[in-house]
């Protein structure tokens, strides 16, 4: 049982990492928590379902369409909700604006697809696979491997690619970045698009493994957000560590205690950690640039 519980924790952690990285990237460049981030996951998952059901697309093109939709919606949130609100110089307005975007997306999905929960057709992806003491599925393995590869690619991008370096520069000091010719809103767009792509993939993973419904982004978003704060918001490595911690806490408390009070355990961990390390596991956004 312990191996299964640990494995469940790692897979859940890989999933939460995809979400947490989105929060942390956006926080780094735009200094705001995007409360519609969870809903971008939902849009990705529903786009995939819609393409497969309505247009009978095979899984691969449906997946690409979902990724495109995730990036597009994230960009629209940046353009329509965040940027106009941020223009007035108020730090709080864009955050409230993303809450508005979240409500609009949830209501829109409810109108288009109905409030009832659905599921992405998994087929053989959901058949049990036995690896020693562990039961898994191809869907879970894809989440684990895909999530890790994507995280690695993101890390390399931030480190070596020109735009990745620009993201780190803006996160470190937006004014200085601007004086050397980096347009902060262009960089913000890249960060939003990246976060949208990762969110869409996370949404599809949840839709396959579990279910999708218009409000699915709420609880998943909060798990990802908690992970990002645990890790030190603005720090991608911290987000991954935070996600692993949240995944493990969810799995171990759920298996050995009870899932009934899951949010309590997760937020309890957050409260305890912040008591001793107010900056999170790793230092916050400054460290992005080091």
């Amino acid at each position, binding site marked *: *049982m312990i191996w*299964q*519980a640990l494995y*469940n924790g790692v897979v*859940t952690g890989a999933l939460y990492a995809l979400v947490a990285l989105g929060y942390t990237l956006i926080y780094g460049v735009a200094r705001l928590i995007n409360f519609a981030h969870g809903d971008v996951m939902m849009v990705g998952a529903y786009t995939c379902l819609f393409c497969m059901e309505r247009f009978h697309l095979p899984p691969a093109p449906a997946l690409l369409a979902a990724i495109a939709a995730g990036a597009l919606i994230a960009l629209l949130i940046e353009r329509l909700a965040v940027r106009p609100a941020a223009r007035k110089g108020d730090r709080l307005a864009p955050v409230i604006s993303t809450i508005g975007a979240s409500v609009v997306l949830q209501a829109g999905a*409810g109108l288009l697809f109905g*409030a*009832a*929960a*659905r*599921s992405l057709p998994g087929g053989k992806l*959901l*058949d*049990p696979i*036995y690896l020693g003491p562990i*039961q*898994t*599925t191809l869907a*879970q393995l894809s989440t684990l491997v895909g999530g890790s590869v994507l995280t690695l690619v993101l890390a390399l991008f931030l480190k070596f690619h020109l735009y990745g370096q620009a993201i780190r520069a803006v996160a470190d000091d937006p004014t200085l970045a601007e004086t050397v010719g980096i347009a902060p809103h262009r960089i913000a767009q890249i960060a939003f698009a990246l976060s949208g792509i990762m969110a869409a993939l996370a949404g599809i993973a*949840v839709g396959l*493994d*579990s*279910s999708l*419904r*218009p*409000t*699915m982004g709420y*609880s*998943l978003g909060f798990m990802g957000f908690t992970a990002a704060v645990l890790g030190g918001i603005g720090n991608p490595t911290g987000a991954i560590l935070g996600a692993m911690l949240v995944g493990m806490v*969810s*799995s*171990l*408390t*759920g*298996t*050995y205690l*009870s*899932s*009934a*009070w*899951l*949010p*309590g355990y997760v*937020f*309890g961990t957050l409260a305890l950690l912040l008591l001793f390390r107010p900056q999170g596991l790793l230092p916050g956004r400054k460290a992005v640039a080091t």
Partner: protein
Amino acid sequence: MLIGSQKRRRFHLALALSACSALALGLMGCPPPANQSGISGSPSGPSTTLIVGFVGPLTGDAASFGISQKNGIEMARDEINAAGGVGGSPVTVVYEDTQLDQNKAITAFNKVTDSDKATVVLGETSSANTKAIGPLAQRKGVLLLSPIASSANLTTSGFPLFRISPSDAFQARIAAQYALSRGWKTTAILYTNDEWGTGLKDAFATDFKAGGGQVLGDTGVEPKAQDIRPSLTKIKSLKPAFIYIPMHPDEAGVAIKQAKQLGIASSFLGADSFSEPTIAKIAGSATDGVVYTMPASGFGAAYDQFAKQYQAKFNGAPNYNAAAGYDALKVIAAAAKRAGKTDATALATALKQTKNYEGASGSITFDTNGDVTSKAFDLKKLQNGQSTLVQGHIAINK
């Protein structure tokens, strides 16, 4: 913890709200005494008009539950009014949406009772929200009748409540009897941690143990949980003969789907939530063979007539929730006619005299707690997303 403090905050809010409304009532002075002299003539004064408030989810995740009830209530209202209404004046029903949110339920309850002057409230849809508005109804002297809230805990919650759906204590007993009759001796219970789920879990455990069964363990999840693997991992290690699963459709679908992924071989025994197509939509063929208990409906002349008219009006077959909404308003109108008054006390006394009323949702007789004791349950089995009858019309012998 967070949840506890939220509950406490809600409680305080409820307290503050009710204190405010009590104060307001006090300032306005006591309502004028009803005309009790029985002067001959038309009893169609404002005091005899029956105003009913519906408090339930009409939008949001649980909208389908509220809309079915509303459809049933609308049909009943039209029939009653076409036949002359109550006391010579038409019955009015006002609807307030709660989105199944506890705070919104309290606001909605206050709106229909304070602003619309309803003396009867139909609601809420969930047992937890019914428990939230119950004390308010008691304090305001409003008659509360929930068409479909069914938690076993509501019987002993300490406020007056009438229900059209039988208490879950009965369906838990029928589930336990079925499991024992199959020779299943050990179980683990996977439940939704709310009023409804814990009520069924406790009632089932009591009856199953009393019949010689053994409960190896239980584990709850929060409503709308999307990852049930941790709980399933625990249950798998217990190796029960079957898993009793009083969960709402969203969690139940995910639980059955992920149980298959984890290679769990135990059978599932479910509750009335399994009549919702959502479960098969989430879990697909993994739901094949799941047996569940369901309040019996779809029989008798009253149901046939209801179903025919429902089909004509809404262009679809009615479900249990629609039948319960329909019966709720019908028994209240019948009670108001018997009492000749529409105040909550008179209505409650008259409602308790309801005996063997043949409704669309089955026969209705209330006991002193306001619970129906005259209904029956069906055992049904899921196959390819469709329910087939295993055993019909099992009477509840209280």
